[in-house]
């Protein structure tokens, strides 16, 4: 049995919150630099240059890259041989978020409920997804999820007859509808298969993959490339001012589904694409 004290989890979560919000992942920055090389619109290039400059400033001064420091979303892979002897994991994560958002000068953006819109004051509750795994693995992946792009996300229950072409249409249509509101260039998380909620979960998790890392299934990876090309044909461009680079990456996660179903969920992430990982 591997024992991880509660204090260590709190500290790790605190640091992840600050790290994710102030230091954009290298794979995402590299994708933005590639987009800057390819972008044909002068205004689009200007936007990409400013985004990269903003990333430098945020990292150097340890301030948030974007004021919307989002929902604190965690994917937790927890091994069957891992134990927290002195506390409960969910509590520890929420305490870490509380400290990270306060000590990192991050905005508290969570309200109690859609109808009682009182701010909770500390950016909790965190959004936590647990995945039990064998062994003594304990891996935390944080996604800082802004609302502007989350608001432009969508899910469709396609029929098997609508198939891959129907899926492509739906994804591109979602991007077209989002336009500038999703703060492009976006990262596109897609979940296909499973029942309704599984598709949405996969779409969110797909966003945590290093930018541009293809799906291991070559057929799915080919779809990712084709859809990326179609999205970049829309002309929406950086900040929606028009241009050739509308998305930096399309990540598809796939799962078994029903003989009658072809669910597709599209979760968009804005140019402030913020993830961080830690293993204990």
């Amino acid at each position, binding site marked *: 049995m591997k024992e991880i004290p509660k204090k260590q989890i709190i500290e790790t979560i605190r640091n992840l919150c600050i790290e994710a919000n102030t230091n954009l992942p290298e794979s995402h920055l590299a994708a933005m630099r590639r987009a800057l090389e390819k972008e*044909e*619109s*002068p*205004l*689009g290039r*200007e*936007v990409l240059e*400013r*985004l990269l*400059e*903003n990333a430098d*400033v*945020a990292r150097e*001064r340890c*301030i*948030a*890259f*974007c*004021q*919307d*420091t989002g929902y604190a979303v965690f994917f937790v892979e927890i091994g069957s041989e891992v134990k927290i002897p002195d506390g409960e994991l969910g509590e520890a994560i929420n305490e870490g978020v509380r400290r990270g958002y306060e000590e990192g*000068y*991050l*905005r*508290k*953006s969570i309200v109690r409920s859609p109808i009682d*819109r009182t*701010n909770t004051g500390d950016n909790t509750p965190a959004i936590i997804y647990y995945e039990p795994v064998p062994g003594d693995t304990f891996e935390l992946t944080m996604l800082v999820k802004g609302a*502007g792009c989350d*608001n432009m996300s969508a899910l469709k229950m396609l029929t098997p007859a609508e198939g891959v*072409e129907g899926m*492509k249409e739906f994804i*591109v249509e979602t991007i077209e509808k989002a*336009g*500038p*509101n999703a*703060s492009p260039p976006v990262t596109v998380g897609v979940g296909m298969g499973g029942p309704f909620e599984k598709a949405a979960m996969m779409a969110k998790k797909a966003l945590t993959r290093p930018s541009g890392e293809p799906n291991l299934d070559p057929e799915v990876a080919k779809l990712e490339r*084709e859809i990326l*090309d*179609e999205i970049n*044909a*829309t*002309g*929406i*461009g950086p*900040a*929606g*001012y*028009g*241009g*050739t680079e509308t998305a930096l990456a399309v990540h598809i996660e796939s799962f078994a589904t029903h003989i009658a179903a072809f669910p597709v969920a599209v979760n968009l992430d*804005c*140019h*402030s694409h913020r993830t961080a990982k830690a293993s204990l």
Partner: protein
Amino acid sequence: MSEPIRLETPLSFEDVEPLKTGDVVLISGVLFTARDAAHKRIAEAIEDGSPLPFDPSGQIVYFTGPAPARPGHALGPAGPTTSSRMDSYSPLLIERGLRGMVGKGVRSEAVRDSMHEHGCVYFGAVEGTAALLADRVKEAEVVAYEDLGSEAVRRLVVEDFPVVVVNDLRGGDLYREGREKWRRKRTPPPA
């Protein structure tokens, strides 16, 4: 790209009239911040006939809810939020002389009509440049609704605050025109 145009607030009709979609503008002077909750209260104040947090005449509203400032900074990171959530409220301020709005994302037809009728321009800022934008803020002071925290109305004094004209007074729309200009034919699916 053309040379940036420099504007100083307060703005007159003559200041905003020549602006064209796609123009890069550097704003100096005052911006008032307000987003969802503050707009709701402003609308309620108008309905009740109570005083507004600021006189909108000649002013610019910036749709933002800044992050907390580190010591030594006037304001924390402060990029624009999605403007469409303010669509139902914006005409109330535009009718009262508002000359500009800074945000991101598409505005409704009703807002665009109101802007056209009363002489108000919509500027875009880039959300993911929040840290850089905060650098252009020299002073920040909460002027109303302090209980709203990040969503309170703040009076910002800015220097060369960079924006782009999205909707001008001639019906121009950078989001629509930009997309049309750079759209290419989608690769047809393999036969």
